[in-house]
């Protein structure tokens, strides 16, 4: 009986949570397709990633509106309130991740038909890591698992190492062959966008910790 008192609220928040998972899936797909467009040099696919970003933005705003309505009509408190506030922050990070995927797609279009400077090795690794971290952090969000969230935030170190490796390698190539600077820079942008996705996952991890514990703190200062 006591649990039915807030059944309406619980249902409404579950709907929001479902939307967050849907948004997460769309972001995951945007990352996958952006990488594919880079690997295959497929400008049509790249343009699709850019165009589809509108849908992601629309869902983001819808989730924010749902959160506003929850606050206005249900007056959540304590962990309920923290979950709504965290969700409003998480939705922004997810939407920005999609912007980073779009950033890669835009670079693909800028690259035109120029051949790749070098075979892609670490960049796909970064992309896979980003997707794994994204899936895992959404799992931690749904489970409200602060421990898991902290573990996922720790994996951002792997991402930073990969980025560093790509960076060093590209700088070396640029120093050797000044004619390669433009093409090297394009790849650097792609790697940078993926590295930023890792940072966004860390932001989400911080919010999951906040929901569970009430502590607001940076996880990878």
């Amino acid at each position: 009986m006591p649990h039915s008192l807030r059944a309406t609220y619980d249902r409404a928040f579950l709907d929001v949570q479902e939307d967050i998972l849907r948004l997460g899936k769309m972001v995951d797909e945007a990352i996958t397709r952006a990488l594919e467009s880079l690997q295959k040099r497929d400008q049509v696919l790249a343009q699709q990633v850019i165009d589809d970003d509108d849908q992601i933005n629309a869902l983001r705003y819808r989730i924010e509106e749902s959160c506003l309505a929850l606050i206005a009509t249900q007056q959540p408190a304590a962990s309920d309130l923290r979950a709504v506030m965290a969700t409003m922050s998480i939705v922004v990070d997810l939407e920005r991740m999609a912007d980073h995927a779009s950033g890669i797609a835009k670079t693909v279009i800028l690259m035109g038909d120029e051949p790749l400077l070098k075979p892609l090795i670490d960049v796909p690794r970064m992309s896979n890591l980003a997707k794994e971290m994204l899936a895992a952090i959404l799992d931690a969000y749904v489970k409200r698992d602060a421990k898991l969230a902290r573990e996922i935030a720790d994996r951002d170190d792997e991402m930073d190492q990969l980025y560093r490796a790509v960076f060093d390698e590209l700088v070396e190539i640029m120093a050797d062959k000044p004619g390669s600077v433009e093409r090297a820079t394009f790849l650097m942008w792609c790697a940078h966008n993926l590295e930023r996705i890792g940072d966004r996952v860390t932001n989400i991890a911080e919010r999951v910790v906040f929901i569970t514990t009430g502590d607001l703190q940076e996880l990878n200062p």
Partner: protein
Amino acid sequence: MTEMQISNKYSVHDVDFYYGEFKALSEISMEIIEREVTALIGPSGCGKSTFLRCLNRMNDTIAHTRMEGKILLDGEDIYEEDMDVVDLRQRVGMVFQKPNPFPQSIFDNVAFGPRVLGLTKSRAELEATVEKSLQRAAIWDEVKDGLHESALDLSLGEQQRLCIARVIAVEPDVILMDEPTSALDPIATLEIEVLVRQLKEQYTIVIVTHNMQQAARVSDKTGLFWLGELVEFGETNLIFTRPKEERTEAYVTGRVG
């Protein structure tokens, strides 16, 4: 005075309260800070009103009740034998759930306390006290042209503010409010809430409320009562954003109670 001085108005130590054999309060301890609003929340029948009535010995009037523990008001034990209860209730006024104006004029309602206690020496002084009290209770503008009309003709919200003016007229330090808005519509409720925020500039206020959002809006500190225990007591902001106790979490999120 340039520095804010924080001092305890009430110090409550290990208060138990019994209705006959039934233990209604168990080991309540808390500090109530001067010129703060302290809200008491909790499910019905969990002791918050009983506790409120301990603060000005209103329970003395109920037969077969017993209190143990200590309640200090400005450092003075209010349950000491030589405590003057009339004097205590002047220092600690009370506002009830349903507005209870006397069937008299607005003026006479507010003048009642000062007249009985002989607080004013002249008609002019009494008139000044009545005006000041009505102003502090934020109802002066509405009633100043009809002070000699019946208080019963006022709206419920106005009646409640009149009752607050009546309390203020005897110059208390503390105002206890027992669900003061539960009989009022939402606008009248907000008016009382605004008033509570204003009154805390001069008075220490303890308010029992069933409306959790009201506690969140008006109070500095909130205490959750549960089956006669004080489960958690602390800064209102913290109680409503990150309570420490599971029972508080369950209550403020509406999952029990």
